[in-house]
């Protein structure tokens, strides 16, 4: 069902025009990124580097029975093999590592090492490990009984691996008394903090550099990671540079994931859709350490009466969860939105009308109404009313995200040659932090964006937070506004003196010093008058955040229009409208891109992504980008981001919320088209056909 009329999102942007501080700015590093001029950590090969690879367990549970270290050590270029464990509890679990002079020597060394593993029985299926399900609690049972109708349904989601395009790792340029650590991280400073003892250097002796990051989404948070720590220790021991990056399979197996989930819903409701209460019990599929499987339902976004919640993590022999863009939320949202659509169906209600009744936030209600108009909700056909081969469906979901405080130090330096630097050590994980900093600084100063050089991603710059929880922009922007204002004030003070102007007479606009109504001095000439460079400073912290009433949490609503081919079970999503609260938008393009990216990730999760463990051996059968399927260009709908800016003059968190509701909205749209719910992600053709009752012998 190819659609030749798919429009680029940019064709639908008039709605957002004029909504931001800078509508038309492109990413400052966009061209460098697409031409390859941008060097990611993975691209940095320091001459004379050692290469390191982990020895990993190939099975769900494996016991290392033998290996031939001597043979491996005989391979030219292999320096050391260290095996520290005898057993692995999941495919990809590390049991040691090998150090060599080249990648080729490593791979030869690995085959000579000839690890022999004894395979043991592995736990691979959440459904099978849940065990006997506890009966519903007494209070919940009472609430359930009060409703005139009830819904008992099980929803499930599969594991989504991180599979960052730039795999996890570091390249360390180590010299005996200094080092530069080229890291692929969401936390430049957390890598610094994790390495001093490992590198055996003082913090003043090394720098962490992270100019570009090829994907993180939570998996590159929290310190230097296994890769960084191992590499640092080897660098210190051998007094040499070290390169250690995962390969594609390792990236799938051992760098974290969004856990799978099962949600058992038992709720009672009335004919008008009011939810009386009941119980929602969730299970998360996690690794052997049994943690991190949270599934966020009920989300609190809806009024679900007296609904009790219980959760349990279930250990599998598989790679472990790690924070993943809105941890716990998409899987919970999928269950919650589907549950509401099933309630609406049972009551003969329009799912939008039901939601408008149950949504707690007035702002989100308004966003939902706006999104419904934009998608053309009036054209939605009643669930199950269609008979054709290709059926159309519409669905919706909502989102919300909290605003979390983080400490940021910002500096804006104006040099005497006229150049301007905006400085903070935080990294740009692809969200556009570099550009955001430039825009905030330039527009506060009153100069053009290209006049500002943004310096970020270095641990020697002023300190900023790790990029997790959607904190980076919301907390950096106020710091840079303050820093730029400080620099501007200092500059104007100095110039007022030099130019014998009245206090308050001078200002900066369009890169020119204004005196009253006229252009007085060009920027360069003004800077030349300064006795020394000017440094403006700004901070953001819990106190400034608490005092700031211009911003807060962000909400959103998404709407999906799709087609499903009922003979093949293949789904083609046509349009997704994403209304997203942004508060004050810094850059329209970046904000739209953030929303579009969230939607794409949610769509890919809804339709395709599935870490598949072999039930016999416990190995992941698809640790690649061939069989671990991620949405591609031809799977893309037209995505229409709508920036909701009615809610204040401060920036709002935008990283996580747009990926939360997409999968639920898609599943609801599918239900609308088919008349039968598919309660399990991903929504693959075999499941669609089974739901339609036509999957022969399936």
């Amino acid at each position: 069902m190819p659609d030749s009329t798919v429009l680029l999102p940019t064709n639908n942007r008039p709605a957002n025009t004029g909504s931001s501080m800078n509508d038309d700015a492109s990413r400052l590093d966009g061209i460098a990124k697409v031409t390859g001029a941008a060097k990611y950590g993975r691209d940095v090969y320091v001459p004379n580097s050692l290469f390191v690879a982990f020895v990993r367990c190939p099975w769900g549970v494996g016991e290392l029975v033998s290996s031939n270290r001597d043979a491996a050590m005989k391979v030219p270029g292999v320096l050391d093999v260290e095996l520290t464990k005898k057993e692995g509890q999941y495919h990809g679990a590390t049991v040691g590592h090998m150090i060599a002079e080249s990648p080729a020597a490593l791979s030869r060394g690995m085959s000579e090492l000839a690890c022999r593993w004894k395979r043991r029985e592995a736990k691979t299926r959440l459904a099978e490990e849940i065990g006997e399900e506890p009966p519903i609690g007494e209070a919940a049972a009472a609430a359930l009984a009060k409703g005139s109708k009830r819904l008992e349904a099980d929803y499930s989601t599969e594991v989504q691996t991180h599979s960052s395009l730039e795999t996890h790792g570091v390249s360390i340029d180590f010299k005996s008394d200094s080092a530069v650590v080229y890291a692929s991280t969401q936390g430049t400073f957390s890598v610094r903090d994790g390495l001093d003892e490992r590198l055996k250097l003082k913090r003043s002796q090394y720098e962490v550099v992270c100019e570009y990051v090829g994907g993180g989404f939570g998996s590159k948070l929290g310190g230097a990671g296994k890769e960084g720590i191992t590499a640092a220790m080897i660098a210190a021991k051998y007094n040499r540079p070290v390169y250690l990056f995962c390969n594609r399979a390792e990236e799938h197996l051992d760098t974290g994931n969004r856990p799978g989930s099962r949600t058992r819903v038992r709720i009672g409701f009335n004919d008008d859709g009011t939810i009386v209460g009941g119980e929602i019990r969730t299970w998360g599929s996690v690794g052997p350490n049994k943690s991190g499987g949270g599934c966020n339902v009920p989300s609190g976004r809806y009024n679900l009466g007296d609904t009790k919640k219980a959760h349990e993590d279930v250990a599998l022999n598989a790679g472990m969860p790690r924070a993943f863009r809105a941890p716990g939320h998409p899987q919970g949202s999928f269950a919650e939105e589907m549950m509401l659509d099933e309630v609406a169906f049972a009551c003969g209600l329009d799912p939008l009308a039901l939601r408008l009744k149950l949504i707690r936030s007035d702002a989100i209600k308004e966003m939902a109404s706006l999104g419904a108009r934009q998608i053309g909700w009036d054209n939605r056909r009643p669930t199950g009313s269609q008979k054709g081969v290709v059926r159309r469906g519409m669905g919706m979901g909502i989102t919300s995200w909290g605003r979390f405080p983080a400490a940021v130090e910002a500096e804006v330096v104006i040099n005497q040659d006229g150049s301007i630097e905006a400085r903070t050590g935080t990294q740009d994980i692809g969200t556009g932090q570099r550009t955001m900093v430039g825009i905030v600084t330039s527009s506060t100063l009153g100069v053009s964006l290209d006049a500002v050089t943004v310096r970020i991603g270095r641990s020697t710059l002023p300190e900023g937070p790790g990029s997790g929880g959607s904190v980076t922009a919301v907390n950096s922007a106020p710091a840079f506004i303050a820093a730029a204002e400080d620099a501007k004030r200092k500059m104007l003070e100095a110039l007022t003196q030099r130019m014998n102007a009245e206090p308050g007479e001078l200002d900066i606009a369009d890169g020119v010093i204004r005196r009253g109504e006229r252009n007085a001095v060009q920027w360069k000439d003004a800077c030349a008058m300064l006795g020394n460079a000017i440094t403006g400073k700004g901070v953001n912290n819990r106190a400034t955040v608490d005092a700031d009433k211009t911003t807060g949490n962000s909400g959103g609503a998404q709407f999906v229009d799709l087609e499903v081919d009922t003979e093949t079970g293949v789904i083609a999503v046509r349009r997704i409208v994403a209304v997203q609260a942004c508060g004050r938008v810094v850059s329209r393009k970046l904000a739209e891109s953030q929303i579009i990216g969230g939607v794409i990730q949610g769509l890919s999760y809804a339709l395709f992504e599935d870490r598949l463990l072999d039930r016999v051996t416990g190995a992941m059968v698809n640790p690649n980008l061939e069989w671990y399927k991620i949405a591609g260009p031809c799977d893309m709908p037209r995505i229409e981001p709508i920036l909701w800016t009615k809610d204040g003059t401060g920036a709002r968190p935008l990283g996580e919320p747009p990926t939360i509701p997409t999968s639920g909205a898609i599943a609801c749209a599918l239900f609308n088209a088919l008349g039968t719910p598919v309660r399990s992600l991903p929504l693959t053709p075999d499941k669609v056909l089974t739901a339609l009752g036509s999957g022969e012998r399936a």
Partner: protein
Amino acid sequence: MKSFAIARPGSHAAAAKLAADKTYTLPVIKSGGIDIIDQMKEGLLEPDLLVHLGSIGEGAATISMEGGRLRIGAGVTLAQIASSPIVIEHCPVLAQTAASAATPAVRNMATIAGNLLQRPRCWYFRQHQFDCLKKGGGTCYAVEGENKYHAIFGGGPCHIVHPSNLAPALVVAGGVAHLVGGKRTSIPIADLFHTPDKGVRTEHVLEPGEVLTHLTCDAAPASGFCGIKEKQSFDWPLAFACVGLRVTDGTIQSAGVCAGAVAPVPWSLPRVAEALAGVKVGDDAAIRAAAVLSGQDARPMRDNGYKVRLLGVAVHRAALKALGREAEGLS
């Protein structure tokens, strides 16, 4: 990866000689290299000589019509086939299968010979730690394990699906592979592959040292392809069908039907072909009924029963496409 030498012979005959050269432990022919390099990276194949075909002239990269048959050089890329006016006019099924395979980047490198002779994509085969039957081990992991994408026909003891999109199209069009370096000079595509019961370690019958120079096939102007994929970018079909028809006076006189992604070899469906013969081109119900016969002998595994139904749909739609139509209700 082991160190290896590269040779760039100037002719197919020279390539054949190198490929049989006993001074090397494992000389291997490389055409576009898409599959060969993948196998080397995973450690499945460790050649000490790569015989690169890229420098060969001899029409290796050209498409032409000769004596009413299409001639395609072994080194012609899938992208060339997909966009060739000659192929689109005379053998649309071949152009369509080529266009639907893989990704634009892969199609620009992948050659028709390499596509036919590539190794299967079974996820156990492709990961080094599984010593399955095809690699000389004792079990087929797919039987008890994960078999959502495996064969529903002709499986056992190995249950791969044949990976080539182009092979079933060539079977329908009476394709022939032309060879140098061995005893024969040609072999029909229909005989090029063997089922696992005839040998589980290999998929085709060529000997080392036999080199494919070009392919020929009949013109099949009323032909069509339909593949069903989970993902519309960068994905393998779950099931697909190639149909060639001979139509006179509004009636199908005879048909050739071959399925892909459902069996270890291109899977001909003679019963469907028979049922299509004599059907009026406008009789959708009869075409559909014929298509449903495609599932008759299927022996699905635990997780791939859905393919039976998909194949019926693919055959139906491919037949309509061969007639220049789309299935009703598809926009």
